């Protein structure tokens, strides 16, 4: 007999779908089927049962081969690395729960480390912009029930947040949006004709890297002022048309993604997008929301902010938190070669950092805590596989609209495997002993 677990939270993207159903074997050890999740979420649940999964920590030997070690030996090594280092980097945190993040921050304080999460390569520039001019936002529930104007700017939820559109932003029938998709106008801004753009009422095919100009032009068009014939590759007639569509709604939402945060202009693109939202509020009600990627990157920002006062790029090397993106941010620290040890958990900088930064990471003592084999584990000295968060262990996580949700455990981890938090507790206790901290 198998049993079905309902209301499971999907630990893939920031949408945190909370309607997943998982069929597990009677002994609670194997996932048989996953219902309601997108193809990526399903793969995440199913992969936990992979036969070739690594279940014990392993150390890289001089000849490049791996030697299996115990969790105790692994924690000893990690604590020693952190204790010896002058400026260790503790990076990742976005695919783990808030409890583990909090434990990690405690370690970072003792180790006087630099702590950073994956906002470094996704919405870090958004966080800078929010500190500049604020963020008028709302929850996804409000969007489902109210939004009749939806803008996706530089993001492609059809690929990156596959169920976002069906659960919240386009298709669902809400209290004031009773006709679902028919109640909403969809505007997509993207240099490619993405699968999201194909669904749009209007697609503005902006010239890559000229989002700032187009955002400015829209602010001008709202006031019906003069525009040149084309701005950022878009004819002015289309810009005026979109301005009228946006103004005529009752409740609008601007979702934005990597297209604006990673293109030149960076945080200033977001500044301008938030300013556009502010301008639109002269006419009707508008909100703006970043499309957060990792399932709990928002949570990592929250935990860091309430413990240290800053949401990412926190430098604790002087014993108190400092924050200066460009100086204390992981990519810059690595590109300048300032890091002498690294502890990576719940993310894969080996795959997602520019190779110049990865090269430095590979040449310092690197501890990688990750259930998968990844490019990061491939260049690490110690690889510690752990239980899958959100599948084999629960814990708190934050949705992209800053709503905290309690994750659910659906199956047991393979025998003898620890969770992130359990391993971090071992490292903390050892580090405190070495440093003589009570």
């Amino acid at each position, binding site marked *: 007999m198998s049993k079905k677990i309902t209301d499971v939270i999907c630990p*893939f993207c920031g949408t945190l779908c909370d309607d997943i159903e998982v069929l597990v074997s009677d002994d609670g050890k194997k996932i048989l089927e996953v219902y309601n999740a997108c*193809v*990526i979420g399903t*793969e*995440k649940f199913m992969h936990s049962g*992979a036969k*070739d999964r690594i279940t014990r920590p392993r150390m890289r030997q001089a000849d*490049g081969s791996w030697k299996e070690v115990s969790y105790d030996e692994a924690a000893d090594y990690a604590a020693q690395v952190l204790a010896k280092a002058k400026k260790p980097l503790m990076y990742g945190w976005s695919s783990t729960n808030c409890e583990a993040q909090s434990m990690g921050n405690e370690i970072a304080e003792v180790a006087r480390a630099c702590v950073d999460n994956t906002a*470094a*390569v996704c919405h*870090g*520039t958004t966080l*800078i912009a929010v500190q500049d001019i604020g963020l008028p936002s709302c929850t996804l529930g409000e969007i489902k029930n109210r939004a009749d104007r939806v803008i996706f700017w530089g993001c*492609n939820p059809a*690929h*990156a947040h*596959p169920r976002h559109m069906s659960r919240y932003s386009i298709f669902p029938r809400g209290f004031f949006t009773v006709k679902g998709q028919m109640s909403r106008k969809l505007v997509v801004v993207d*240099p*490619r*004709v*993405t699968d999201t*753009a194909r669904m749009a009422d209007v697609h503005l*095919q902006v010239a*890559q*890297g000229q989002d700032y100009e187009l955002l400015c032009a829209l602010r001008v068009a709202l006031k019906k002022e003069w525009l040149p014939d084309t701005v950022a590759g878009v004819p002015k007639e289309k810009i005026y048309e979109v301005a009228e569509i946006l103004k005529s709604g009752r409740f609008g939402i601007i979702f934005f993604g*990597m*297209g604006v945060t*990673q*293109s*030149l202009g*960076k*945080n200033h693109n977001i500044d301008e997008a938030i300013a556009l939202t502010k301008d639109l509020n002269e006419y009707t009600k508008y909100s703006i929301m970043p499309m957060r*990627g990792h399932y709990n990157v928002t949570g990592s920002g929250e935990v860091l902010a309430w413990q240290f006062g800053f949401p*990412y790029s926190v430098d604790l090397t002087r014993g108190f938190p400092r924050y200066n*993106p*460009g*100086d204390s*941010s992981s*990519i*810059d620290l690595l*590109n300048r070669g300032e890091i002498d040890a690294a502890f990576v958990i719940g993310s*894969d900088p*080996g*795959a*997602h*950092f*520019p*190779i*110049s*930064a*990865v*090269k430095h990471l*590979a*040449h310092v003592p690197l501890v990688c805590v990750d259930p*998968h*084999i*990844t*490019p990061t584990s*491939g*260049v690490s000295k110690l690889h510690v596989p752990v239980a899958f968060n959100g599948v084999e262990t629960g814990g708190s996580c934050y949705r992209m609209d800053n709503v905290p949700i309690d994750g659910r455990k659906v199956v047991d981890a393979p025998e003898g495997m620890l969770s992130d938090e359990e391993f971090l507790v071992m490292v903390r206790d050892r580090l405190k002993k070495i440093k003589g901290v009570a």
Partner: protein
Amino acid sequence: MVSITVNLISGRTIQQGVAIESGKEKPSYREAAGIIEMDPSDLKKLGAWKNTNVRVSSDYGSVIVKAIEATQGPHPGLAFIPMGPWANQIVNPNTYSTGMPTFKGTPVKVEVSPNEKVLLGVELVQKSCFGDSS
């Protein structure tokens, strides 16, 4: 040898998302992210068939990937490599004091290179970091 210059962006695809969850050491990851999506007009300029291996080079590095026809086009002059180790061999790592590398908008040169093979994800990063000895 013919080469063309295009503007490179990287980003998520759903195939890449599935591949990272099913194992980055596997060939499926290479199938999903060791590619460059190019507009048909750019492939024509390059004189390349679809599914030919190409060398993509920028000021910051060089990588072999498989050129495929754009799945979310047309976007002449623009090329797309899904986020991952292949794209990160050549993207602009400068953050310009924001902490964020410039993952989108790197000018790159593309040339046909049918005899070189596309490396697996983990292998590619190991080779870049440690050379051939790894």
